[in-house]
């Protein structure tokens, strides 16, 4: 199993009653911040990820949010490029995994292709690119894309990026969403024929089918409560794969889980409880449902399915006042002693065929020193037991330089 450390740059000092007074995106008043605390968020992010690289994680991951205090990273490639340089200079052989460069949102897919190629070059072939369709509020409100156009833009952007990486000759692109007289990016990726790609989604069957059709990975974020949603989503994923006639290889599937490790279960609750609550309450808990589902963004059949059975959304409607115990019970977080965490993840991964774990070990208001300890404990006492899982499979969605077989 591949273990990738995932981190964000949240604003960590929102008021106690934030989730009852404000929204966590689009309208959040910037007057809640101080410049010093905003600066600290990025220092923490870089230090935590670099600590992960030194502790032996297989990869470092970050994503994209905009106009939100939950994660002040408007483009994951900015963080990824800085890490590509530092890890190369320091001889740290980790994958660089920007999981969130949304192609449904981007109006500049050629630039996305070039940015990713640049990260692949700077890291000398360690990029694992991640392209989500796009969060509704981010693609549509922050970036002005009509909800109905997001998926078409994503599919066209994906075609364009993959071709821009691989076509040796300049080509003209006459798309529905963009036209370019000559696409000929510099640099081109180091990895041949192209860097591995994973598509991030929340359970839409069409997104899953796309990954099988194009032989890409699929990444699922477990924030809605993986005990509630994971079984449904992962079983759907493998069923779609089976129908497509694709052999089951767990390395196709990545799963992001919020994790908190301490010496004992009780210690984990004491050390992490309120920071876990901060993360979920002031992030998903302070987001109106419309922000993740705008009219036109979800197919009419998807709307019908969600109205009949909103199970894919897990406990999202209870996040605003969710307690640590509720979040742990729903699987939004796995917290406890190294044994508890190890057993929980191993069982979940084995049951659903998960080959890549994106471990989110810093979250909400968790101070840097506690986050560092969480990373260390995970690396020393949890990771060794998970590494051997799926050793019988080849990893076709991982850089060759790092042992993958793309």
């Amino acid at each position: 199993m591949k273990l990738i450390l995932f981190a964000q740059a949240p604003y960590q000092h929102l008021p106690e009653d934030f989730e009852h007074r404000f929204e966590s995106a689009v309208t959040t008043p910037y007057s809640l911040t101080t410049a010093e605390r905003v600066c600290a968020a990025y220092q923490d992010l870089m230090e935590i990820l670099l600590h992960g690289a030194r502790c032996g994680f297989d990869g470092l991951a970050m994503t994209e949010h905009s106009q939100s205090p939950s994660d002040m990273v408007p483009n994951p490639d900015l963080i990824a490029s800085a890490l590509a340089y530092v890890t190369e200079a320091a001889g740290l052989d980790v994958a660089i995994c920007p999981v969130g460069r949304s192609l449904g949102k981007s109006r500049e897919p050629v630039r996305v292709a070039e940015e990713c190629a640049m990260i692949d070059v700077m890291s000398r072939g360690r990029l694992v690119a991640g392209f989500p369709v796009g969060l509704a509020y981010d693609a549509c409100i922050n970036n002005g894309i009509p909800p109905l156009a997001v998926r078409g833009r994503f599919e066209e952007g994906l075609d364009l990026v993959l071709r821009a990486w691989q076509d040796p000759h300049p080509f003209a692109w006459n798309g529905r969403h963009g036209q370019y007289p000559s696409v000929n990016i510099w640099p081109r990726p180091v990895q041949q024929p192209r860097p591995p790609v994973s598509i991030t989604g929340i359970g839409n069957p069409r997104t899953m089918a796309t990954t099988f059709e194009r032989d890409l990975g699929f990444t699922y974020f477990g924030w809605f409560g993986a005990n509630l949603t994971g079984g449904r989503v992962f079983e759907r994923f493998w069923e779609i794969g089976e129908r497509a006639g694709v052999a089951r290889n767990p390395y196709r599937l990545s799963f992001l889980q919020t994790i908190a490790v301490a010496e004992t279960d009780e210690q984990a609750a004491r050390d992490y409880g309120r920071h876990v609550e901060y993360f979920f309450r002031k992030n998903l808990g302070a987001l109106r449902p419309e922000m993740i589902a705008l009219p036109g963004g979800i197919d009419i059949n998807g709307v019908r399915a969600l109205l009949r059975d909103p199970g894919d959304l897990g406990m999202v409607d209870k996040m605003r006042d969710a307690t640590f115990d509720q979040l742990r019970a729903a699987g939004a977080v796995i917290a406890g002693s190294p044994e508890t965490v190890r057993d929980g993840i191993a069982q979940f991964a084995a049951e659903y065929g998960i080959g890549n774990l994106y471990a989110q070990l810093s979250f909400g208001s968790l101070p840097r020193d506690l986050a560092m300890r969480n990373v260390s404990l995970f690396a020393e006492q949890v990771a060794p037991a998970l590494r051997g899982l799926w050793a019988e499979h080849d990893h076709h969605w991982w850089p060759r330089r790092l042992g993958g077989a793309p």
Partner: protein
Amino acid sequence: MTRDIPLTVFGGRLTVHVKALGDGDPLVYFHPAAGLALDPFVQGLAARYTVYAPEFPGTSAGDPYAVHQVDDVWDLVLVYEEVIRGLSAWGCPAVGASFGGMLAAEVAATFPDAFGRLVLLDPLGLWRADQPVADWVSAAPADLAALLYHDATAAPVLPADPAAAIEAIASAVWSTGCTGKFVWPIPDRGLAKRLHRIAARTLIVWGEQDRLAPVGYAEEFRSRIAGAEVAIIPDSGHLPQVEQSAAAQRAVTGFLAR
């Protein structure tokens, strides 16, 4: 008795379903963003006219992906031109509400002889920074009634049967998404530059308490369309044809009969 007239247009790429009711002279009705409702206002028009109400591409039952055949307002205008000619209704009166008002105005500006008379009920399509049009697409369902109606109790109630309610919500949400493609994120596609081309005698009807597109927009439309008249409907929000159906009916039929 409502008839369904399927018209294949746009080089065969699209079938527009037109609902037809009544049996007088033809009149074309352009429905609002959430889809066609054959409400008392439309029924009232059908007492005097044959009302042809084209369903916006993507909003017809069983054909949701038709919307993907149309990319922009220019495509839409050409589709509707073919539909109106196909109905042999060229030169007839047209009534458009909200999003449908914008669409009717676009057709009338592009083809000045398309309609003999034009009625626009709280039409979209213009933008004033000091009176921004509210965002109905991303509004919470609980806030939508207050945005659309002066008195929120005027809002139609959902069917009691859960399955029918799901169908009603899904279809209103999808219709809002289909029409939203052509006005998101700001409902201004340059109509202000084209309104002067409208040659039809025009009535602009506005709900006095419209919170979605404030009544100040009535003057913005009037000043750009030669000879246009304005009728303000009191105690009404954005949908006077729903909230003050009788008053809206009187204003519209009175204007069309003159």
